[in-house]
């Protein structure tokens, strides 16, 4: 008797979810039948948007899981990563200012483009080199700004990352301003039509990149180093007692987080996020657009990052597609607000995020 009673009882959270999801589902089914081509395009676009958010979210999660720090400089890292890609592939040079040149730029030609490879292969190799540079930046930041703060209140560390975000963004903006910084992807601007709807190849590139990132992160967490990183996340002192060098583990988390940010940054220059295919001041904002995905998913969960990214990305695209008739009421920028609305609804139902660990979230 008592079990059947408890089965019948529906929590406030669940009731709320039903109240939100049933009308949305009905609306979507109606749309599917009224114009399948638009619906399909919107789905693919959603997946692309969600994938980009998921990549950025994974970077947040990787760093948070190891260090318990929400890294607010993820956006600047995304922009810097995209800039590196741009330097290596658009100019085909690595811009450096050596000490002997009195502040003048002495670009080094990117040797990959002299190898005589097909251009997509040269781009791919340069992309990997750029990720490597981005990871170095992550290592460097961890060493100079985060490591000295080990053991200090996490809030202070989070504020430091916010400071990093602002300073790095200023630096990146200055270098980006020089000229339109193209990321020149092999699929840039290309695509195909479904009915009247144009689908960019970048949608699919983002999905593939997200899938590769997720698999890589999963495999990493099963490696010896990855297990050590999860151990550090759970109990720093006990990890130290096992002889795990937590400083090095932090550095690796930051390096990997920065590389993921760079991948996210690349897709932030392309559709569906942007049409230009160029890095600009807005590129760094992608992290703040993805932040609701991370929080909705639960800050310390890989699955959460993926699901959060997809939910938030889909909500944004679907709202952009189907509510555009109400722009006069909602305001022109309304799709950008949707991720936060979804996050708030999600947090009302699950205060620690979809997959978040309660214990950790108390921080």
């Amino acid at each position, binding site marked *: 008797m008592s079990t059947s009673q408890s089965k019948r009882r529906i929590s406030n959270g669940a009731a709320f979810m039903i109240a939100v999801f049933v009308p949305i589902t009905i609306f979507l089914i109606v749309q599917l039948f009224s114009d399948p081509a638009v619906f399909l395009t919107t789905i693919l676009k959603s997946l692309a948007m969600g994938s980009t958010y998921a990549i950025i979210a994974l970077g947040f999660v990787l760093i948070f899981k190891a260090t318990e720090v929400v890294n607010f400089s993820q956006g600047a890292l995304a922009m810097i990563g995209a800039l590196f890609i741009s330097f290596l592939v658009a100019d085909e040079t690595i811009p450096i200012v050596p000490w002997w040149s009195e502040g003048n730029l002495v670009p080094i030609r990117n040797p990959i483009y002299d190898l005589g490879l097909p251009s997509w292969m040269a781009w791919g190799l340069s992309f990997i080199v750029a990720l490597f540079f981005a990871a170095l930046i992550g290592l460097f930041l961890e060493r100079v700004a985060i490591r000295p703060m080990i053991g200090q209140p996490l809030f202070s560390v989070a504020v430091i990352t916010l400071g990093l975000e602002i300073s790095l963004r200023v630096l990146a903006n200055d270098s980006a301003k020089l000229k339109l910084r193209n990321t020149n992807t092999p699929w840039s601007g290309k695509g195909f039509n479904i009915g009247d709807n144009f689908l960019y190849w970048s949608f699919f590139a983002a999905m593939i990149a997200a899938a590769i990132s997720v698999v890589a992160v999963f495999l990493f967490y099963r490696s010896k180093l990855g297990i050590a990183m*999860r151990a550090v996340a759970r109990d720093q002192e006990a990890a130290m007692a096992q002889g795990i060098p937590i400083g090095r583990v932090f550095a690796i988390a930051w390096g990997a987080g920065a590389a993921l940010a760079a991948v996210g940054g690349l897709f932030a220059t392309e559709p569906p996020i942007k049409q230009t295919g160029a890095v600009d001041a807005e590129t760094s904002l992608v992290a703040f657009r993805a932040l609701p995905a991370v929080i909705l998913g639960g800050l310390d969960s890989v699955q959460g990052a993926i699901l959060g990214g997809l939910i938030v990305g889909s909500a944004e695209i679907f709202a952009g597609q189907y509510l555009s008739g109400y722009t006069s009421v909602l305001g022109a920028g309304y799709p950008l607000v949707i991720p936060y609305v979804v996050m708030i609804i999600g947090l009302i139902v699950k205060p620690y995020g979809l997959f978040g*660990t309660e214990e950790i979230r108390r921080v």
Partner: protein
Amino acid sequence: MLELANVEVVYNEVILVLRGLSIEVPDGQIVALLGANGAGKTTSLRAISGLLGPHEGVITKGSITYDGKKLNDLKPSDIVESGITQVMEGRRIFKDLTVDENLVTGGFTVKDKARTKASYDRVMDLFPRLAERRKGIAGYLSGGEQQMLAIGRALMAEPKLLILDEPSLGLAPKLIEQIRDIIVDINKQGVSVLLIEQNAMMALSIANYGYVMETGKIVMDGDAKKLLADDDVKEFYLGLHGDDSEKKSFRDVKHYKRRKRWAS
């Protein structure tokens, strides 16, 4: 041999907890370190393993050496690599990792895969219960199994000296016996043991030598058998004193008895 000579430890720059602690753990032996709550036992172990940092503690005086190598300023990972591994108070297993993954963390400092495999097999041999639950989440193990995992994890680092901080805490008598036998087994395989215990009877029954510590220094030491027979130790640690329920310090007991002896 591990040697602590006149070690002083200060927490938060003001709280002096170890006041000139000196102990020795010769190779191949089991040494027991006894003491009441708050005597500074765990602090001594943190000092040995280089784990004072997270507690805002520092060694202000004295030296800790292992086989002639000074450990005072080494990182925890270096100390583990020198052959000293600690099983921390309260087990401290990684609860959301599997049993196998916990063991991987224990073997982090060992780079040779074949040796890691050998250690792993040895642990599985020693703890058949863990072998059954290899893929299970460690947090779901029982208290006794968690203690076994904590010891197994420490063994994965191939220690020459194993330090155990109250391994019997919170375990049923039957399990305490099991843990005791395992410690003896491990010692027989050539690993020295420094054993911290509230359960003095258990510790002294397997130790070669024992130290009794109070407010940060050693107040008594000797052969384990001798300590086990000592009236003061018996009275205070083995709970064999008849008269009062009030908790006394070990030194009070001694002092009181001494006075009584003088008076008579």
